[in-house]
């Protein structure tokens, strides 16, 4: 009797576990028509309503709105980076999706592997650097938004101390910190940035702790390169200002958010799907480094800023001028002379840093305190 009960309970656990994994990698397929292009998306998490994956979800919604019943989209959410991703991407390929967007850096190897197995299907990977004839990569010039943040922070700070929370010391994050510093120093040479590495993309409690430490150390403007709105909530509670990440986070901090950089993937998705439908899809001309086949910023509409809030009108105006300057190319973010924060010259006057060198950044520019760990 006891053994039977044990067996039954084991089965129940097994079934629950199975249902759970099913729930986790829930596949949603919208209604299909015969002439429509089938498009697959792989998401790192459930989209929720803020942050990285939600930005991709908005891009997918723009695709659906733009094409109507000419496309059929499938999404798989909550796909861990690693072997599981390979299985999911292969499944999407086998279901007849003609183009598959994989939306996290860690899907790079899995996407490459499946792309080789299905040479007739097009793959688009955000934001890696490995590609093949049917695998293109796309990325956003996030650092342009960081430059604007720097300008606003430089004008708004009273203590001249900016607290920055970074996820990991990788070139994408360092590029953002340096762009922020460039923006800040263009209007305020006295201010400095203190960086705390969270060593995680997502841990609300730790991000909140880092924000509290920054405030205790005297920072009055907070910037983040991590995913949760926790930091902004702490800013709101303590009456300091901050910037959101990936999507508009003003709902979490109506009195504190200055603005967020908003990742706008829609135009890129639409462009690539359009190209595929016209038989003109190609990986593009992009250079062979991290920048991707397509690396778009303000000028392509792939990067936007949410509404400027909680700042005086002259700062708003200045911020808008900067955005237009970057858009038209009159403002060069990484133009010489550039010095790192130990005083070593990185780039002589009159030159501009090329995209490849941006991805090689392993130093802080002037205006940032401390040293990059490791």
């Amino acid at each position, binding site marked *: 009797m*006891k053994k039977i*009960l*044990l067996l*039954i*309970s*084991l089965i129940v*656990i097994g079934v*629950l*576990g199975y249902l*759970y994994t099913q*729930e*986790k990698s829930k596949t949603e397929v919208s209604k299909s028509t015969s002439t429509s292009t089938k498009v697959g998306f792989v998401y790192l*998490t*459930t989209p*929720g*309503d*803020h942050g990285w994956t939600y930005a991709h979800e908005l891009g997918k919604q723009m695709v659906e709105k733009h094409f109507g019943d000419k496309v059929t989209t499938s999404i798989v959410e909550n796909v861990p980076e690693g072997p599981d991703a390979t299985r999911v991407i292969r499944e999407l390929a086998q279901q007849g999706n003609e183009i598959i967007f994989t939306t996290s850096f860690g899907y790079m190897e899995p996407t490459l592997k499946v792309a080789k197995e299905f040479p007739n299907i097009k793959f688009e990977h955000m934001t890696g650097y490995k590609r093949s004839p049917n695998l293109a990569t796309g990325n956003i010039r996030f650092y342009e938004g960081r430059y604007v943040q720097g300008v606003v922070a430089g004008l708004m700070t009273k203590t001249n101390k900016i*607290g920055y929370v970074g996820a990991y*010391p990788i070139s994408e994050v360092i590029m953002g910190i340096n762009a922020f510093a460039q923006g800040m120093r263009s209007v305020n040479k006295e201010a400095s940035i*203190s*960086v*705390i*590495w969270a*060593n*995680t993309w*997502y*841990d*609300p*409690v*730790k*991000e*909140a*702790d*880092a924000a*509290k*430490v*920054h*405030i*205790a*150390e005297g920072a009055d403007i907070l910037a983040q390169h991590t995913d*949760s*709105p*926790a930091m902004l*909530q*702490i800013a709101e*509670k303590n009456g300091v200002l901050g910037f959101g990440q990936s999507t508009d986070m003003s*709902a*979490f901090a109506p009195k504190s958010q200055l603005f967020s950089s908003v990742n706008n993937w829609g135009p890129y998705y639409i462009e690539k799907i359009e190209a595929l439908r016209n038989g003109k899809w190609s990986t593009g001309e992009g250079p062979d480094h991290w920048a991707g086949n397509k690396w778009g910023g303000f000028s392509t509409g792939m990067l936007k800023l949410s509404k400027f809030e909680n700042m005086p009108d002259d700062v708003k105006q200045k911020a808008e001028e900067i955005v237009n300057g970057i858009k038209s190319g009159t403002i060069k973010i990484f133009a010489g002379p550039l010095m790192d924060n130990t005083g070593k010259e990185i780039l002589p006057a009159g030159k501009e840093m090329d995209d490849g060198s941006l991805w090689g950044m392993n130093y802080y520019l002037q205006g940032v*305190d*401390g*040293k990059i*760990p*490791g």
Partner: protein
Amino acid sequence: MDALILTIIATSIPLLLAATGELITEKSGVLNLGVEGMMLSGAVGALGATLWLGNPYFGILGGAISGVFMASIFSVFTINLMTNQVATGLGLTIFAAGFSGLAGAPLVGKTVPSLPKIELFLLSDIPHIGDILFKQDLIAYLSIALIILITFFLNHSKSGIVLRAVGDDHNSAHSIGYPIKKIRWLATCFGGMCAGLGGAYIPLVLTPHWSEGMTAGRGWIALALVVFASWIPWRVIVGALIFGGITIAQLVGQARGWPIPSQILSMMPYLATILALTIISGRFSKNKSSVPASLGKPFIDTP
């Protein structure tokens, strides 16, 4: 400085509560590895109740009830159906992580009012100490009261001694007529309630929003803390504060530019836990130990 100490205390409280609950559960001989899951459901329950009823004090209740709910699922399997406690506990965490995500889906993006701070008459006016110790919220006071009560309960009350007897030798305790299963049910549910409260502290005080997996592994740390404290309640406070202290110290170190790589500082709390585990198990293994002798063993009452 006061602000940093307050931050350390706030970071420690979820760990303190979850570890206290687990300590009682383990003292009764049940090893529940589902703490992380129970904390997550506590967090989602707390936020849900607060949004629904509009008051964070209902959130405390909601968090506790959600924790008890998860613990009772665990109890049905391990105590009544005598399944393997380790496997069931791990299963509970995986289940609760998914379930809380599902239940929390409508709550994503909503914010709630934080739990208000309560100032204690006169005590709050003491400089520094008053600001740090006597301007806390209800859950913080509750967690300290809990530790004091549990210390008294385990050492000086009859029911506490019965609980320990059940955890040390369930066959002997059964033979003199104690209801083993009932006691273990109660202890496990108490553990669930505390873990739920610990989880509730995160959305009610630390970061007032819900997002999936927001406890980010704190349940596992709480489990380690119980061993770190060698099943003695007051040591849980010390352990939780050490853990919180090192976590904050590594953030401060980075902000102030101490010449230590942040990765090493990030490792420190875990190194400290392992070190403490090694010292304690070395010291106590040959001597009189407070490890519950029947820990993790299912009780089978042969008819």
